[in-house]
């Protein structure tokens, strides 16, 4: 403790409760960390008045209570159940209605079409890939009746020749191939292989 600070301003660098002892004349030494010195410092040396302390403690307690109350009001009770997010968000997203019924739902009723399709090249193609989203039809078959797709547009989407398509995929230039005839004049979409081998 021989820095200039201590010499010019004797109180600097000394713990404030030791300063009290010094003012009272009970200690003149410079060894601030002597254990017997710390032992001599009682509660009254530490605190001139406990009122300030109580105020601080009360304020802190109030702050904690306010924090807990606000958190309870703002953060959902089950927040963090599955991770750092609101589990209710999962339910919100899952509440979205389904538009595509899925192949199993179609084939439950249309087993004849499924049977025809299973023997042809289109066996792997899902029903709604061509017929569009029909979950509402699956729920209420009598009142929601789907329209048959237009083969001229539908078939060309997949089978119109394009350099970017895989070479093994069957492609035609529709204008040259059919001369304007609708595809389903010759090909049956559920089993497109020509019956007469033409």
């Amino acid at each position, binding site marked *: 403790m021989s820095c200039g600070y201590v010499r010019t301003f004797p109180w600097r660098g000394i713990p404030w409760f030791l300063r009290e002892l010094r003012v009272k004349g009970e200690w003149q030494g410079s060894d601030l960390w002597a254990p017997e010195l710390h032992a001599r410092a009682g509660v009254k040396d530490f605190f001139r008045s406990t009122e300030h302390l109580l105020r601080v403690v009360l304020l802190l307690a109030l702050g904690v209570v306010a924090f807990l109350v606000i958190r309870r009001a703002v953060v959902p009770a*089950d927040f963090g*159940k*599955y*991770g*750092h*997010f*609101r589990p*209710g*968000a*999962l*339910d*919100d*997203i*899952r*509440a*979205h*209605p*389904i*538009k*595509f019924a*899925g*192949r199993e739902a179609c084939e439950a009723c249309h087993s004849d079409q499924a049977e025809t399709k299973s023997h042809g090249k*289109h066996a*792997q*193609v*899902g029903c*709604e*890939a*061509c017929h*569009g*989203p029909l979950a509402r039809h699956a729920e209420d078959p009598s009142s929601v009746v789907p329209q048959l797709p237009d083969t001229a547009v539908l078939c060309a*989407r*997949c089978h*119109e*020749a*394009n*350099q*970017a*398509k*895989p070479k093994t*995929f069957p492609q035609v230039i529709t204008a040259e191939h059919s001369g304007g005839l609708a595809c389903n004049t010759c090909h049956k979409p559920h089993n497109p292989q020509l019956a007469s081998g033409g």
Partner: protein
Amino acid sequence: MEMTRRELLKKSSKFILLTSAAAAAWDYVLAGNVEASPNYDLTKHWWAMVIDIDKCIGCGNCVRACEAENDVPSGYFRTWVERYHIPDWTSEHPEVDSPNGGHDGFPEKYKDGGKTFFVPKMCNHCADSPCVQVCPVGATFRTPDGVVLVDQKYCLGCRYCIQACPYGCRFLNPKTNTADKCTLCYHRITQGLTTACCEACPTQARVLADLKNPKDPIHEFLRTHSVQVLKPHMATGAKVFYKDLDGSVR
């Protein structure tokens, strides 16, 4: 503060036992909550997608199906298809186009040879996704079954996640003014259905996969094929696996 070895061992073993007992008790408390759908267990799935480049014909069925299923506003895409064209003279600079996200198919454009192919794109549902890390309000999160979702009620629409996504998979929904993205048809897959894009894909170029299901054909597929993810150097833990992806694809 003298402490014998015996005391240390006693205290630390007590600490370990008590904390683990408390954790087990807490788990028990959590397990007591009944799920909205009792048949779906979040912890039993780890969703992924396999995309076979060699099967994609660029018909745009997936884009239209996604739009119909998820009410995606027109001009925005949760999934889209890109056409890559690598001319014979350079492999460094492929030409990429995606007219209206592939929604209306791809009119023939290239006649000059070279390599041309389609690459369907979508959210990669990264295991360590940058979008989740940057969200300032925790609105974007990863579910325990490996799907990255957006909480529409928490999202502020600050667009940080849109900038953070290395794959460009997010957009600001003009109707809700919140971040929007592929949910991997979470409302479908939790009910045992496949995604809308997989349902509509006529060639099975896209297949939904569950990596935690030992019977899922994806395990065989990943073992027996050359499979890549997009931008592996970014260490996002992407879970959309592309078969035979050309090196030029970004």
